[in-house]
């Protein structure tokens, strides 16, 4: 600069401020999500044994392979290292019954990774939670395979092997009288591999909230939405509509609150929008369960709220110095 004759042997990195970074990484976030989901998966494996291991493993590995193949085919950089595909596979597996056939798993991860995420441009660009998209499509296409009572018929445990939401839908409130909150939280119900162990999911969720990986506003407002809506239904006609406990601890509610609704790209980031998003998803969940045709409403509720997310995020605080 000053003296061109001077030989400056070292070349320095010249980049822009800030020169510090807090060290957070996408991969770290995703591996923490995997860690948080582990208790729920482990209990699923203890209950359902090797078939559950098979489904979860196949789901994770096929999701990673789909991502790898798609990025390869479209000549884009390899992104499997960020853990996003693995998380998609893991969560997808957690929602399936342990008896899900292999082709369903592989097809599902294809829908999740390729149709749910990659065709929009990959991580960060998906308008819907990829896992939820995949489950929604498969659930509509192969209804019977998602009938947990039928799918898990051959399992015999010391608790009533009944999918509470299906029982509720088909036989009314009296059919779920036998379920108490403690049993539900301990996973003593029929359901997806990783979606029945309520206590594990709550512990994982709290861990993620404390680490700042998921937004507590979404998770808690989702649960609040479910609770309040269920309570209102229950109060209007307790003979037809079950109380909030069943709605909170059965079906996909807890995994939805902590792992599905909170997916970064498809949920809002501002405070009020997060609350509306969460409460809205909770409200729709119970609405679909109570007066809709589907047994569980979490999947469709989250999809609908994903759709509203960009719109909701327009409700933003005023930036400083802005006149209007």
């Amino acid at each position: 600069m000053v003296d061109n004759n001077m030989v400056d042997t070292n070349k320095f990195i010249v980049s822009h401020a800030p020169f510090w970074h807090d060290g957070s990484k996408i991969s770290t976030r995703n591996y923490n999500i995997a860690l948080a989901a582990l208790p729920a998966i482990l209990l699923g494996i203890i209950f359902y044994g090797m078939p559950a291991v098979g489904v979860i493993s196949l789901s994770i590995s096929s999701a990673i392979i789909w991502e790898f193949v798609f990025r390869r085919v479209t000549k884009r950089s390899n992104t499997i290292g960020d853990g996003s595909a693995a998380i998609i596979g893991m969560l997808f597996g957690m929602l399936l019954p342990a008896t899900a056939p292999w082709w369903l798993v592989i097809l599902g991860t294809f829908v999740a990774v390729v149709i749910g995420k990659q065709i929009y441009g990959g991580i960060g660009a998906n308008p819907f939670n990829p896992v939820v998209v995949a489950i929604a499509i498969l659930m509509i296409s192969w209804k019977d395979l998602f009938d947990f009572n039928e799918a898990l018929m051959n399992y015999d445990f010391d608790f009533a092997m009944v999918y509470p939401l299906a029982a509720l839908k088909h036989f009314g409130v009296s059919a779920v009288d036998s379920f108490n909150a403690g049993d539900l939280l301990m996973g003593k119900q029929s359901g997806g591999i990783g979606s029945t162990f309520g206590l594990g999911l709550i512990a994982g969720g709290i861990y993620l909230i404390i680490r700042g990986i998921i937004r507590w506003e979404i998770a808690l407002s989702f649960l609040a939405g479910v609770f309040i809506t269920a309570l209102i239904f229950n109060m209007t006609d307790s003979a037809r509509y079950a109380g909030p406990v069943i709605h909170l601890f059965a079906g996909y509610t807890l995994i939805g609150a902590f792992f599905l609704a909170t997916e970064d790209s498809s949920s809002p980031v501002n405070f009020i929008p997060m609350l509306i998003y969460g409460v809205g998803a909770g409200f729709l969940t119970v609405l679909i369960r109570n007066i809709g045709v589907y047994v569980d409403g979490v999947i469709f509720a989250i999809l609908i709220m994903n759709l509203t997310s960009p719109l909701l995020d327009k409700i933003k605080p005023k930036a400083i110095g802005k006149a209007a």
Partner: protein
Amino acid sequence: MIKRSFIGLSKPRLEYGSLEDTPSFKQIPTSKEITLLSNSPFDKKKLLLKKKAVVKTGQKLLVYKESDEYVVSSVTGKVSSISSYIGDFGRSYTAIAIEVADDEEIDDEFKSAAGGSKDATLETVKNFLAFAPGNPPVKLFSDKNKSINTIVVCCADSDLLISTNQHVVKSDIDAIKNGISILKTATKINNIIMVASQSQMLKVSAIGEKVNQVNDTYPSALPHLIMKNILGKVVPAGKNPEDIGVCFISAEAVASIGNAFNSGQIPVTKIFTLVKKDGSKSLVSARIGTPASDIFKALNITLNENDRIIFGGPMTGSSVYSGDHPVQTDTDAIIVQDRDDIPVISDYPCTNCGDCVRVCPANIQVDMLVRLLEGGHYEEAADQYDLYSCIECGLCSYVCVSGMPIFQYIRSAKYELGRANTAEATNG
């Protein structure tokens, strides 16, 4: 480097360091050659200052014809070269290299012009002290378009790791006091507001001016936030405090003014923090214009390929591409980063995690803003997503999980928009 804490629920707390963390005080001997950077863009035809001109310590050097832009020589010697230097965003400077002579002579032009502290005039301050350590914003006081009515003397340091102002407050409070009274006489502005950190409150209140306490977490001491939180005046988006009549001046600059009139000499040494690769800090005093390499030599710092040299703080400073980059009047820190400690900037897309939105002190919806900036939609970004509300603290990039250079996107967008607007104005 401060990393994200295990508990990520709360916002990161980046605390301004105190002077106690920066113990040793090292005086750097005068270099063989120093370089002064003038803000005027290099223009060979209009050069007034000639090569081989003999200059004295503290001598005011007018650089160009038909311009009142000047530098103050920090040494006695001979001008050895005058060349162009291109800084950030293509900004052009004039670099004046001076070969230092063996014997030092002090220039007395300022002494005869200034007189005592009592007869300080705005003219003298403006004509001699613009190049003093701390960069006194002397031009603002006489700017007809600004009509400054309040002066904020900032005793806290605005970026992390920096302790220049703290040092001046601790060691030279009388000069600050003197500087304030000179400023009052010269500018006829009596509304002086002192801003100090908690630990400085006692010392600063002894000056007798109104003192306000600034929070000790970054970025509370940035001018826009001081305006909002302490003065209760929100600076409109895209404007600076001086646009609404408030002039910010650092304690160091005030002390420079005080010392100049007290001693009849324009101060020529700059105090700054040097941060070594291992993170240890030392306070250093060197002549303005001293090349960084001489400072590294004096402190036994070795630089390797791909290391990084930063002039200024870790959040708002700028990195330089030569080890010979000179200490300037506003260089509050020189940070050396080992190549292994340089955080990776990635081309990963935004995942919408919202960390930047939560950390932004200006309430900007950064996640949307950055999408528009990435696509080059600068005008839309300014209209809809508050580009101009950004107070340039750099926290968004600091917390970005994807490692995106968000702050740089914002700065280049502002730069490009500014360029487009200027082009529009000139072309009609």
